[in-house]
């Protein structure tokens, strides 16, 4: 009992082949789109790799790039096959390849689905990477004289200006690290020495933030120093003031930015997956209907197309038995002629005993 059997006349088969040819070429285009989306994501992640700790998040864009390229190749081949399927003589060329092709494409569509799901799951790894990365970047903000870290100040400043954010979770993160280098601290001043002494680790901590945290939309000139000291500034209350500095943390800002990109990419990949699946279904119907036509002998006759020849249970059983026959072969070293004596303890009686003829007498 076939799964989803559909009758195909000759014209319907031809039309199906033509439509599938066009759809395969559209799929090549979507494969190119997937490739470029993967490339775009890779570039965006690389742009800010200084702010991300060493976590392996590049696997998502790499997967997308690979999937895109394979999709192009598979659909290019599919287009060729469908183009030839209009003519039943040319179909003979592809007859043996089609079933493996369909199986491969089915597994490939599973990969596409996995790729789409990975886009959504990358969120948590990215958050961790950003948290650690931003913490490091802020710690090395002052080290503009050390090679390898001298551009971190510029990177963090432009990040805070561009994404309108301040610090890791908020502006208070800047109070906990020393972001003014010792090169610019006057060690002869009493105030500086006192502040250094009052800190356990000898760090110069202050309740101030860099200028890049300043909010452009504030109606008053930016208050960067002595932020928590209300009396230091006229008409200022730091608990209610929310327009002076950027209130959002940079981790959240970057996460929102990347999540937005990845949600769009994930949606596109899901749509591509559905499209690929429908093309695959069409190709399967085409393959089965053409095979049935060849079996019937008359190329112009009607034929049946189906997804699976037997029902799902029977197909599973067939696949299992295929696997089992492989097992039996390997037990005898592949030679069926060797007579292996029965090792079971049950006695079924001597061999070669003719069956007793039972005469039913009424």
């Amino acid at each position, binding site marked *: 009992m076939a799964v989803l059997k559909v009758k195909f006349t000759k014209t319907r088969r031809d039309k199906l082949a033509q439509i599938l040819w066009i759809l395969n070429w559209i799929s090549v285009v979507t494969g190119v789109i997937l490739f470029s989306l993967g490339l775009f994501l890779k570039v965006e992640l690389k742009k800010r790799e200084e702010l991300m700790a060493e976590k392996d998040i590049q696997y998502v864009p790499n997967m997308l790039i690979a999937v895109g390229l394979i999709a192009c190749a598979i659909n290019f081949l599919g287009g060729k096959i469908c183009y030839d399927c209009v003519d039943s003589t040319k179909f003979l060329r592809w007859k043996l390849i089609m079933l493996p092709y369909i199986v491969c494409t089915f597994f490939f569509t599973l990969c596409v689905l996995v790729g789409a799901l990975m886009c959504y799951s990358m969120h948590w790894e990215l958050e961790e990477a950003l948290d650690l990365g931003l913490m490091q970047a802020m710690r090395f903000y002052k080290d503009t004289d050390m090679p390898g870290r001298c551009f971190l100040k510029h990177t963090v400043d432009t990040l805070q200006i561009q994404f309108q954010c301040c610090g890791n979770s908020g502006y208070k993160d800047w109070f906990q690290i020393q972001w003014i280098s010792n090169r610019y601290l006057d060690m002869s001043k009493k105030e500086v020495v006192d502040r250094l002494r009052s800190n356990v680790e000898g760090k110069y901590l202050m309740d101030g933030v860099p200028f890049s945290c300043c909010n*452009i939309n504030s109606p008053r000139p930016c208050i960067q120093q002595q932020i928590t000291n209300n009396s230091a500034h006229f008409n200022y209350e730091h608990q209610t003031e929310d327009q002076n500095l950027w209130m959002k943390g940079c981790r959240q800002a970057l996460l929102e930015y990347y999540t937005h990109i990845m949600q769009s990419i994930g949606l596109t990949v899901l749509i591509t997956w559905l499209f690929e699946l429908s093309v695959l279904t069409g190709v399967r119907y085409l393959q089965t209907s053409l095979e049935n036509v060849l079996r019937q002998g008359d190329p112009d006759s009607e034929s049946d197309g189906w997804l699976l020849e037997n029902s799902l249970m029977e197909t599973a059983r067939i696949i299992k038995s295929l696997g089992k026959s492989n097992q039996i072969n390997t037990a005898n070293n592949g030679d069926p002629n060797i007579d292996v004596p029965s090792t079971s303890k049950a006695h079924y009686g001597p061999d070669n005993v003719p069956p007793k003829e039972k005469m039913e007498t009424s």
Partner: protein
Amino acid sequence: MVVMKMKFPFQKRVKLAQGLWLLSWCATVAGATTFTLGCLLKTELRRRAEVMANTDIHIVPNTLMIVGLASLGINYFASKICQDALDAGRFPRWKNFLKPYFAVSCFFTVLMLLAIIMSYAMKGSLESSLKAGLRNGIRFYKDTDTPGRCFQKQNIDRLQMEFQCCGNNDFRDWFEIQWISNRYLDFSSTEVKNRIKSNVDGRYLVDGVPFSCCNPSSPRPCIQYRLTNNSAHYNYDYQTEELNIYLRGCREALVNYYMGLMNTIGAGVLSIFLLQGSVLVSLRFLQTAMEAVAGKENTEIETEGYLLEKGVKETVMEYLDPVLTFLLLKNKVEEGTAGETTTAPA
């Protein structure tokens, strides 16, 4: 005295018509490009309209847009004419159309050239407009509570950060105006009172700049206040310090940006002008060559084509005469009526 006479055998005429058809479609695309370039320039100028005192410079993008639209029409007709040119039956219907067509086309082509010249010539006007606009912007920086000016602070801050500039001519412009509003000054403090008293106009002037002047590429945290006081900051010499704040003035930055944009657009429009000119010249040759064929039995004879039948001066006078007589006639009628009114009461 004919200008630029050329012989045109039949094959050359055919090739000219075909080449002209292709050329006119290229020129149509070029006309659309001109229009787009004009729109782009206008959008860019409008984006910074708050720091420009007047809109005189907008004449350049406006001209480009008009010329772009006109060239679409001109080239459409050019392609239609050259399609009909080789057909002796269809060509005569364009006869009366061609003289005004050439006049209008030459006018718009010259206008294209004028737009390019203007984009270079109006640099001074742009600069003075920006100077006045930026001066006002900086003056009203503190007025975030005055309606109509409340966005000046935002605009100036954004401008200084985007163009990496500070002040009008340079950062010292901020020393001459009060950019901290009185709302945020503690008048009970002696320091504030002294500073205000020491100023003739009673303004609170500081040798400091807003945070948007800060350079992110500086190795040290930004020094915004007491810029000219070397002893206020450790290891700091304001005469030699060049990475702390942006040293460039915003007027210079904006003028450079717009002149760069207009130079690029000007180069493109110049090539489009040459293309358009070649279309018109080819069309003129085709027209004069085909006119000689009209009425003859054998359409495949060799004819002569020329640019102008008479000399340049005579042709110009020929075109300007109707315009002048129209204007003069109007004046004569006005003078006549004025004379009548003056003679009547007499």
